[in-house]
């Protein structure tokens, strides 16, 4: 059984889509970008990315293509599809609403969520 990340369920998909949104990346680069952008806060066993990537590919949110990497070796590059972009936007909006709501609760109801 693969080690579980401590990310809330369903967030990994959104983070992966967000990272790939900027440019097509292979799995290793996606793992590195996740760590860099989150400044080492988001730590997942790197292997757990692959089931997520394949799932997103099967759902046609990502498209994949084998092409030479920066080292010259062939790697599988993932890019966001139009459907993926729409899905990402919907997920991000939903996440932001939830985050604002949680923040509002933590602040003792001083600021109502927008």
């Amino acid at each position, binding site marked *: 059984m693969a080690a579980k990340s401590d990310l809330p369920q369903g967030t990994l998909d959104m983070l992966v889509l967000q990272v790939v949104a900027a440019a097509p990346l292979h799995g290793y680069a996606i793992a590195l970008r996740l760590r860099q952008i989150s400044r080492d806060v988001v730590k997942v*066993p*790197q292997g*757990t990315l692959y089931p997520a990537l394949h*799932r997103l590919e099967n759902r046609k949110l990502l498209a994949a293509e084998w092409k030479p990497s920066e080292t010259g070796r062939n790697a599988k590059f993932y890019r966001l599809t139009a459907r993926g972009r729409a899905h990402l936007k919907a997920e991000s909006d939903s996440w932001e609403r939830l985050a604002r709501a949680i923040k509002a609760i933590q602040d003792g109801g001083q600021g109502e969520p927008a």
Partner: protein
Amino acid sequence: MNWLQRLLRRDRLEQELDDEVRFHLEQLVADYRAAGSSEADARRRAAREFGVVDSIKDDCRRVRGTDWLVDLLADARIGLRVFSKEPGFSSIAVGALALGLGVNTVFFSIVNTYCLTGLPYPSAAQLADVSIRDDLGRERALSPAQVRAIADLPSVAGLGYYTMRTGAVRTPESIATRRTIAYVSDDLLPLIGETPTRGRAFGSAEYRDVHATTTLIAAALARELFGSEAAAVGRDIRVDGATATIVGVFPDGARFPDNADVWAPLSSLALSDDAFALTLFVRLKDAATIGGAAPMIERALRQHSVLASDRQHVSVVPLNDRYHGRVTDPAWVAFITAGFLVVVIACANVSNLLLARGVRRTNEIAIRLSLGATRGRIVRQLLAETLILVMAACAASLFFGWAGLYGLLAMIPRTALPYWAALDLSWRAVFFVIGIGAVTVLLSGMAPALQLVKVPGVPFTARTATRGRTIGRWSSAFLVIQIAISVLLLCAVGITLQVYRTLANAAGQTQLAQVLSAGVTLSSPRYAVTPARERFLTELRRQLLSSGQVQFVSIAGALPGTRGEPRMVAGGAIREPGGVVSTVAVDATFFSTLGVPLVSGQEFTDRDGDRGGSSVVVNDRFAQLFFGALAVVGQQVRVQSATNAAAPDTRTIVGVVHLPGANPAVNGPPLMFVPRTAGASTDAILLLRGTVPADGLAALLRESVQRLDPDVPLSNVRALPDATREASWNARVSQTLISSLALVGFCLAMIGVAALTAHRVATRVRELSIRVALGATPAMLVRAVLGPVMVQLSIGLVGGALLARGWQRAFGSPIAASDNLAAVIVLVSATTLLFSAWPARKAARVNPIVALHADG
């Protein structure tokens, strides 16, 4: 990529997954190396960072959504290996299931034809059949006056009616043949949605013309008379002596309402208002339901004063129900239940076989469980093995079903089935077999699979000590029931064989083979009155007798030995009042023509017919059924029609006859011969006995009829035993079905015997080994195994004999006759011993060292 593409390209996907994971790990290693780690340290850290590769790959495979199918294919591969590894076991299990499923395939096809497939008219579902019935449920046709009263009802959206007749059809050049003619009303053909494919339908003027001389014919008749359907249109044919022009030809498969050959406008019959001859279909307006239609129509008929009495009632049923049985009718439910019982018995026996084999595989299962396989996984594997067996059985059962239906059709005369009844292996039957096959997998495979994976690591023989005894008791009881039912069914088969032997001997030995029989139909208007019909028959008889080749000519209402008009008998000393018998109207020379002297009493005289006939002669089967040991001659019986509302009359039995080929103790319908009223019917049976063989008389008969009137058709001209055999196809089909069911039941019971003995040997290996160690010989071991089988056999035989006796008492068929019962007991005992000896041999080969070592 959809899941099917992912399944088909799974090798490529696997390779890509490998490459992707390897690339990731090597990048990680390269990064750690660049950061100063040693090669070994970099690889260790990369592996930790990445996670468990195999587990991640499994997760990726699961994401594809195809692993269940991949596992299934793997299970199927193993199942096929197991199937081919034990061909003996596999063929017995497949055979048992195929028999069970094959019986159901035949049964389902029959049910499908008669209950599930509707009539082949596009609008049949919206139509209802209207009839009038009396208190006893007997049907009466409608009159034109009644139809008019119904047509005026506001709830009736449309109606059509017809009457059917048999008549003579020929071209000006050919000889007349007996055909079915439907006289139809103007709205009928549009109502059912049938139109000719060649020529045209009747016009409205033709429907109103009482002198209409146009006709429509069936495609088959067109081809027979004119070579092709197109050639028939515009040609003349003679229908019942009148010339008519063919204006259209119906396509194959359109012979409404019941195997009609020719259609004519009803107006051409010029029926009187009170001629009760019509069958009526109505289409009701949406608001009117069929349930509410009957009282509404009855009210209308009473208001118009066209319903004869208060004891007559209107019945309205959906059109499909008139021609088809309902699947919920008790007879069909019994039929379907019998089929399912056969499958359940087959499944139970195969389940026992699988359990017996599974016991031998206990070690293999225990090893797989200890290697990490889940119980669910092993159950699935065992079910997959059963699935392979059932798939093979399904394929075999389709063949059995096809062969069974083919055999059945070969026994049924072509004209006996309605034209829409396609008794064949339909796609629906194939899907049914697949569906019932899936149920079979669960029924036969689930119990042994669950039993085998129950307690891993504990020897099966030890853990089944208590539960095994419970299962064993049920299996034993089940086997006893199977043996008992086999005895009952085989007794029935034995009697059937005796009947066939009696018939075959009779046909070969007696003089009946020298009698020629032929149907004659006097349907043309020139024979509309009784004297004309009688004149024709008298003249024909005179010509035949004067030829010198014919000694006797007799005229009867039906073939002797077959079912004539059904009538209910009661009164006097009769044992079973209300019993239904067949009545056959015969003339004074009937018994002389057949060459059968009366057993007691006297024959009819010519005056009996003139009087309207209060005398009757009965056959010995009648005498035995209704009077037992009493003297029959002189007894009086009250006779009432079972099909129409004619008043009962009282008759005196003047003689008893024994018909060759019928054994009064065993078979044959109870018959009552009544004096034939001269010219009473347009249809008659001619019986000729001559100095030459029956076949030689056929040409003479045809010539004589042709000379007298070329528009009179003869039908079924053949030797009397052949005609009787064809006419009794219904009984023959029933007997064949019962015999087939009996043989299938017997085969299954024997497979059950083998399976239970094998199971018993497998679960008693430890005990048998100890016996061997204590000095038991192989013969003693076999006896130890066969002992319980003998007990079950004895109980089964006694139960079967009691069932046969009960059957005999209930239905009068002497299936428990001592010679029949003895033969069946010997057969069942010998076969049971043979089938149990085969697995019991294994008990003789038990090696105590191997067996005790394995269990220890």
